């Protein structure tokens, strides 16, 4: 080999080695980055050290319960004590436009095709109660020829496939192992995509706290063996709550002994609030 020839081969070798080195560095960087990215997910999935600890509290193990709610609309008298109680219990803004739970009134007037529906945000009802902070249905149909009328309490349905959980970009809202859909007020960024996604209008945005909010089935009460506030105060047993894992709980009996239905089954959300006695227009 002449001196002229070694130069190209030397160059070629250098080129090859530098290419190899570059490739190795790139691969290493890529693998390292991927490992770092995968690590949190992997480490989190490994079981926590104290597996036997009851979660979320030491007196309450969420794997032992599966909650559900029932509404008997044939019993509701529209007294709105549930709405009041919920507002007090859960620090819901004291106005007539943001609710964790509310009651709707359906009235069929003789000679009219369309049903008349009203609820707590109706100005006539706000006037009857005297302020936005108190709740009352105005007795507005007492002189009308009414064919059929009834009240329907509404609240978050704590769906099994919640649309709101699906659309949350951060993971601030989630479904617990005992079947309750909760909101992490320390993580929510307040984008309100969940408020748009809920087909039932169960969610609202709390301006003061800057986060979305909704009914939690009073999770802080049910994990202590208490009833949700609305169930506690209902004077006519229109609201039923219980553990579907217990075959003799009020809700299990309610579901077994009645023909129950859910709101908007076509949404695919699989709601867990079961209604008895609602009518064709209720959605």
């Amino acid at each position, binding site marked *: 080999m002449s001196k002229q020839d070694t130069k190209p081969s030397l160059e070629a070798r250098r080129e090859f080695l530098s290419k190899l080195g570059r490739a190795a560095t790139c691969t290493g960087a890529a693998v390292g980055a991927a490992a770092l990215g995968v690590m949190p997910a992997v480490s989190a999935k490994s079981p926590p050290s104290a597996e036997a600890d009851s979660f979320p509290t030491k007196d309450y193990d969420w794997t032992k319960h599966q909650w559900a709610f029932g509404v008997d609309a044939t019993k509701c008298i529209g007294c709105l004590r549930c709405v009041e109680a919920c507002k007090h219990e859960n620090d819901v803004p004291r106005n007539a436009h943001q609710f964790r739970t509310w009651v709707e009134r359906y009235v069929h007037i003789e000679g009219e095709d369309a049903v008349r529906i009203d609820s707590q945000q109706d100005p006539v009802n706000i006037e009857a109660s005297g302020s936005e902070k108190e709740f009352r249905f105005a007795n507005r149909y007492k002189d009308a020829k009414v064919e059929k009328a009834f*009240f329907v309490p509404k609240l978050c349905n704590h769906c099994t496939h919640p649309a709101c959980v699906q659309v949350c970009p951060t993971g601030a809202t989630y479904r617990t192992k005992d079947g309750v859909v909760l909101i992490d007020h320390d993580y929510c960024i307040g984008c309100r995509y969940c408020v748009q996604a809920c087909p039932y209008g169960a969610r609202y945005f709390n301006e003061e706290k800057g986060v979305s909010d909704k009914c939690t089935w009073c999770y802080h009460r049910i994990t202590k063996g208490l009833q949700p*506030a609305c169930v506690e105060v209902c004077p006519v047993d229109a609201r039923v709550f219980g553990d579907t894992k217990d075959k003799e709980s009020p809700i299990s009996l309610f579901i077994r002994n009645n023909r129950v239905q859910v709101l908007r089954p076509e949404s695919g959300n699989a709601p867990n609030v079961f209604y008895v006695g609602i009518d064709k227009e209720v959605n």
Partner: protein
Amino acid sequence: MPKHIFRLLSLIAGFLVVAMIAIPLLTDKSFYRFGHYRADSVPEIAAQEPVLQTANYCKGCHAARHAQWSASNHKSVTCEVCHGAAKGHPQNGKLPIPKDTAKLCTLCHEAMTGRPKTQPQVQVAQHSGGQQCAVCHNPHSPKIAAATTKVTGNAAAGKQRAAACSACHGADGISPNDTWPNLAGQNAAYLVRILAAYKSGDQKDVAMTPLAQALGNADIQNLAAHYASLDCPTAPGKSAIGNAVAGKALAKNCAACHGETGIAGNPAWPTLAAQKPGYLVNVLKAFKAGLRKDPMMAGVSRGLSDADIANLAAFYAEQSCKTTK
């Protein structure tokens, strides 16, 4: 590779590495534990303090009231519905006792379209004329018990027994003087109840107590049946003691139990129409003073002045006790 490309790639790689390191560092350590959320949030929410305490909590200090309430048909209305949430009570002071019961009670009990018929509900204006519900109804035991007295007596047997009563109450049940009440045509259920009350000591009267104690339960039933069957006084008497027109205005508040013209809608309560005005005055005063015992009448009479009592008596004395029934 040109220098600037290499430097650019290094910048990008550096940024990605920083991001890859930062993301797990910034992620809350409880995230991903059970799913795509911060697991610590669950115990945080569960740890919140309940605001409503339930009736069991109230029972701790208010046992007697709780017992009365839980035996009544208001036992499905928990204490905090009317008194407000008990969190922080008694440390933060008393809970409010609702004053405007007409506003509070009508939330459930106003007759309203859509309310199931099983719910006790009233047309407020006709029922109470707008006065406070608590005047007649004890919120912790709202059902007026008197409405359930049974009447099983024999009028003929009662007539025999009534001979002993005619000195004061008249042979035909129409009293000879202003102090002692007419009994003719009075509601049997009321008579049973009041005689039984005299007998048991629930009600005390100097004259009636020993007399009633001598009666057996069958006697009471028979006497009641006898007097109820008699014709009530025909000509209503004009009373000199009060203003019947003023009394009529006041009587609106009494109409729910005693009827608009003093003819009681429910036989458990006495008909006042054509009753002796002197007797009515004495009885109302006795209720007001607490000498005659009835939780409802005590409340109603509390706000009546002597003049009001006289006017009411005058009004009822003038009324015809003839009904269309």
